[in-house]
């Protein structure tokens, strides 16, 4: 059985290789992306073009993207709904706990920075949100699930609220685009504060959308991790 697989895959990869060789390795930019590069800063005010594309030109993709994480988190809450927690109950040794207590704020600050400075430097809503979610994973592993459920800001009940708030923030900005007579999710022509590119408070709705998707990603992934780690 294995040899048929190897044969099939060898044939498939040969066909793929032969037919994909003709794709020209382009030297100059494609028409659409040359527009992004030439007038991206002027249209959106954000100097990080990838973020400008993600949160302004193709903002609808990012809304769909945040919904994928929301659906996955909802699926986990549906499938792992019983509350019995067996693993990771008491966390690691006190030395690790005190060490974690010292540098966990720095991880949190770094995550917030990556979200907030998304439209200027590399990074953005997704990367910052996952950094904060990995902080919540660290807290669960180091302090154990009992601590996480009761007291911290990352407890699952609060996370599902944060997720919905992030979603409504995203839809709210989209609807302000409609209410001001423009299209859904339109940025500078919907009257958001443009500011000078390169500064922290610039590029209209892009920083707010970064915060919204950062909240959704952080809350969603911490719910996913809590459900998998806590399940029976």
């Amino acid at each position: 059985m294995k040899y048929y697989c190897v044969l099939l895959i060898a044939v498939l990869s040969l066909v793929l290789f032969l037919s994909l060789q003709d794709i020209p390795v382009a030297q100059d930019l494609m028409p659409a992306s040359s527009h992004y590069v030439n007038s991206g800063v002027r249209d959106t005010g954000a100097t990080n073009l990838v973020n400008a594309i993600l949160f302004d030109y193709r903002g609808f993709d990012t809304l769909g993207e945040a919904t994928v994480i929301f659906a996955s988190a909802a699926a986990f809450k549906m499938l792992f709904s019983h509350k019995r927690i067996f693993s990771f109950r008491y966390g690691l040794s006190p030395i690790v706990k005190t060490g974690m207590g010292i540098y966990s704020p720095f991880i949190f600050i770094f995550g917030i920075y990556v979200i907030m400075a998304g439209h200027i430097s590399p990074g953005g809503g997704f990367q910052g949100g996952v950094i904060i979610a990995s902080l919540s994973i660290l807290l669960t592993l180091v302090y154990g699930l009992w601590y996480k459920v009761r007291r911290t800001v990352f407890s699952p009940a609060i996370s599902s609220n944060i997720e919905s708030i992030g979603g409504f923030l995203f839809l709210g900005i989209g609807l302000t685009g409609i209410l001001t007579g423009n299209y859904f999710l339109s940025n500078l022509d919907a009257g958001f504060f443009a500011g000078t590119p390169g500064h922290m408070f610039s590029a209209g709705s892009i920083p707010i959308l970064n915060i919204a998707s950062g909240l959704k990603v952080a809350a969603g992934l911490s719910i996913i991790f809590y459900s998998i780690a806590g399940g029976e």
Partner: protein
Amino acid sequence: MKFTLVFIIVIMSIGLYGVLAKDNLIKKVIGISIMEGAVFLFLVSYGYRQDGAPPIITGYETRIVDPVPQALTLTAIVIGASTTALMLGIIIKIFNNYKTLETKEIRRLRG
């Protein structure tokens, strides 16, 4: 940059082999995430321009890399992560019912 296509197709066939030929469910999920890695590499490597600068406008660049494949890859990475997470969740639940992860045994137990 010329031979990236060879590596992409080799990695994709390794991932496809992992999905098709391996019996363990976790090995299949690893195969899928390797295949997706190959597709991300394909997207970004065909967006690269010879000695271009990263797509952050600082005013000093002469040539800039194509930002659109990077935006697509970023979205695809997060989609791949959440699908992998869902698959791992279902694998844990399957293990609780069947106490095994081998597809042959699962088919035998299912009867």
